[in-house]
């Protein structure tokens, strides 16, 4: 058994998928270079209002209440990819027949998804969830399913043996014959498949040749074309071209939310998650920027999803980051694969608040890198760790408060320089082993407390009185006192070959205060002959 999915008025449906509120309104799609744009598709309400196919934009604007939208190749590509994902969620054998047509082999799926009727219903529901209205047909042969999908509205299930009977009322147009053959058939008065199927084969062959016989076979539901499965690359991207440039971040959230939900639905259909989000934006007056700077700009395919191509190329050469005024690219890497549109939206919002685009937004491009979903084995006795989705949000929020560089895990660098570390991203580490009863006690008793240091960053300049080379009195900030004991100097130096080298004498000093002793690590910088307080023992 085969199923055929057909999306009528695909260019219009792709736009409605991006703006669902337009579904209830009269709407027409325009194509062509200004000022010669013409209506190529109009829905029923628009046709009633007077906006019919072929009108110029100026004429279509006369029709009252009709929403006019330019054809969007990006949205069509995204809708087509979403359609393929829906099909792949049901069957591994899927043929990408056309932008608006997808065929799939559903033979043998009864034990998983149920009867062909149920598969057709579920498939239709799945497609309507991604925002497309579909015509769907199931039949024993591929071409019958395809023609039934193109000819009948809603869901059509044709039992084996009834192909010819069910196809009878369809117009000859569904077979997509060559114009001259169509004209000939029309002149004979053959307008539906029943009439074509009943023509005597030999005279038909004499007049229309092999093509005539092929069309007759199709009209009788006797097609025998095999399915040619395609395995499209796993690109999960959505693009939206805005009618008016967006200047505020708040309305942008609505657009992003819709795009994220679409992408998450597509990933879910493929049983995948994502570990990286890429948000690209084309800002106002940014159209020529890429092509002017980038030598590979000639490789762009005109038309289909050009923004995505631009950003992909720009990403390769790290051009877009420097080009903040024209193209905008942000990338959010996730520590673990996730699939939660709300979390993604919040992360993008926080990132946009921290790094707002510098000009009004004209086009938005969103891409998710597919990854296998996170699999974790939890255990009753393992140490608790924060939930990754929640943790990501919290870290993003805290980064907005303290700064991205001030948040993470300290990693000590392999150098003799004191206080040398770098901050890397925090990700919960899985417990390697179960806590063993009594282990705590053993460790606690065996480990003596280590005296710790507290750093002053940057080190504090100090006034030091010395006697015989040893510090005897120290004053810095609100600390003033006699040095009751000291040890040093401990001379260290390093990286003399760079501008960042150091050479100093370190001292540990005990300074008598009113309530007790305070113990400090100090040093004398040999280059500037100045004293600094580096840390306090605590």
């Amino acid at each position, binding site marked *: 058994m085969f199923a055929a999915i057909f999306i009528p008025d695909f260019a219009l449906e792709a736009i409605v998928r991006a703006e669902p509120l337009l579904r209830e309104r009269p709407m027409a799609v325009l194509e062509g270079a200004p000022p010669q744009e013409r209506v190529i598709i109009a829905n029923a309400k628009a046709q009633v209002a007077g906006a019919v196919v072929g009108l110029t934009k100026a004429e279509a604007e006369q029709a009252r209440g009709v929403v006019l939208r330019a054809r969007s190749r990006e949205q069509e590509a995204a809708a087509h990819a979403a359609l393929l994902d829906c099909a792949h969620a049901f069957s591994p054998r899927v043929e990408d027949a056309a932008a608006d047509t997808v065929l799939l082999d559903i033979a043998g799926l009864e034990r998983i998804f149920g009867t062909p009727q149920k598969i057709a219903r579920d498939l239709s529901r799945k497609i309507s969830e991604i925002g497309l209205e579909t015509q769907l047909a199931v039949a024993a042969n591929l071409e019958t399913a395809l023609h039934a999908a193109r000819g009948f509205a809603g869901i059509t299930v044709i039992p084996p043996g009834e192909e010819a009977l069910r196809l009878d009322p369809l117009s000859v147009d569904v077979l997509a014959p060559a114009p001259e053959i169509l004209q000939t058939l029309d002149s004979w008065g053959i307008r539906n498949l029943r009439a074509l199927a009943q023509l005597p084969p030999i005279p038909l062959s004499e007049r229309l040749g092999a093509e005539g016989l092929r069309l007759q076979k199709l009209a009788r539901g006797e097609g025998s074309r095999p399915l040619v499965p395609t395995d499209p690359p796993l690109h999960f991207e959505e693009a939206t071209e805005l009618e008016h440039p967006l200047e505020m971040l708040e309305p942008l959230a609505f657009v992003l939310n819709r795009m994220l939900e679409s992408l998450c639905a597509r990933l879910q259909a493929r049983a995948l998650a994502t570990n990286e989000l890429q948000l690209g934006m084309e800002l106002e007056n940014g159209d020529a920027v890429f092509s002017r700077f980038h030598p590979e700009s000639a490789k762009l395919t005109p038309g289909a999803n050009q923004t995505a191509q631009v950003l992909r190329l720009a990403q390769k050469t790290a051009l877009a980051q420097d080009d903040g005024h024209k193209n905008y690219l942000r990338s959010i890497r996730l520590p673990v694969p996730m699939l939660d549109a709300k979390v993604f939206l919040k992360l993008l919002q926080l990132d946009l608040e921290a790094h707002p685009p510098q000009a009004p937004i004209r086009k938005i491009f969103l891409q998710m890198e597919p990854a296998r979903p996170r699999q974790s084995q939890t255990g009753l006795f393992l140490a*608790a760790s*924060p939930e990754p989705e929640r943790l990501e949000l919290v870290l993003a929020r805290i980064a907005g408060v303290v700064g991205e560089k001030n948040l993470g895990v300290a990693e000590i660098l392999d150098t003799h320089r004191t206080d040398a570390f770098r901050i890397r991203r925090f990700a919960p580490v899985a417990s390697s082993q179960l806590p063993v009863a009594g282990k705590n006690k053993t460790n*606690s008793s065996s480990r003596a*407390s280590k005296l710790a240091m507290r750093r002053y960053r940057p080190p504090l300049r100090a006034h030091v009185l010395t006697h015989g080379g040893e510090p005897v009195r120290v004053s810095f900030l*609100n*600390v003033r006192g006699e040095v009751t004991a000291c040890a040093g100097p401990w001379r260290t130096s390093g990286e003399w070959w760079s501008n960042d080298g150091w050479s100093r004498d370190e001292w*540990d000093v005990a300074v008598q205060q009113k309530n007790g*002793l305070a113990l400090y690590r100090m040093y004398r910088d040999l280059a500037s002959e100045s004293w600094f307080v580096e840390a306090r023992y605590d």
Partner: protein
Amino acid sequence: MDSAAVRATVEARLAPRFPNALRFQAPAPSEKVPTGVVEFDRLTGGVPRGAVTEFFSRPLDVFSPRPVVNSLGRSGFALKKEMDTAPLSSGCTSIMLSALAEATGTRQESCVLVDASDAFDPASAEAAGVDLARLLWVRCSGTKFSNLEQVLKATDLLLQAGGFGMVIVDLNDVPPSVARRVPLATWFRFRRAVENTNTALLVFEQEPYAKSCAGLAVCLEQSAVSIQPSAQPSHTRLLREMEIGAEVVRSSAERKAIMSARVNFKATA
């Protein structure tokens, strides 16, 4: 009918329908986790999960009211006015690292350090046995907000997120005159946020700020310092060890605060 009778009637009618609502439920004793300082853990049993624990370094009597007689001959009480002084070496950070080493190393929990003054020394922590990969370090360096604002915002978010075994707020270098401005409501919010969770919230500070919100309050002070004689080789390692005294001044686990419980322990260099 007086109010007591009305109440008794209402309770009698509601008792069969909502038996648990009108019954006194004693709070379950909170689990305690060791800090790694054996003497301290023996005294207190460790720090409680689901509660705020305060470690502070100043003796309380600095803030106790003292009797005064004014120029008109009237007697009363006045608080000592203390200038913000530099914190001493009291052992707060040593205990903090010891507790972190226990949590991240032994129990393999994810922990957070909210560092108000960017004073955390990763090298000391590693030497103390802290697994740095499990420690989220939030450095509050006061760019957009003040340090204290950053600390409070970050702590709030982290406690709400949950899942951390230990959240440490280090206010040791924040002058008391600044930290005292934190409203008590903030500490109540923190207490409520950690209640019934597995998170132990530890606050290291110069004075006790959380007051009654703290489940355990411990005063730390330097008891003795053993310093290496200067005749020894001129290595900068001056300290041999420091003896730290810990006094439990508040414990919600006990019916009465253990005002006199005290323990000394040593931190070696």
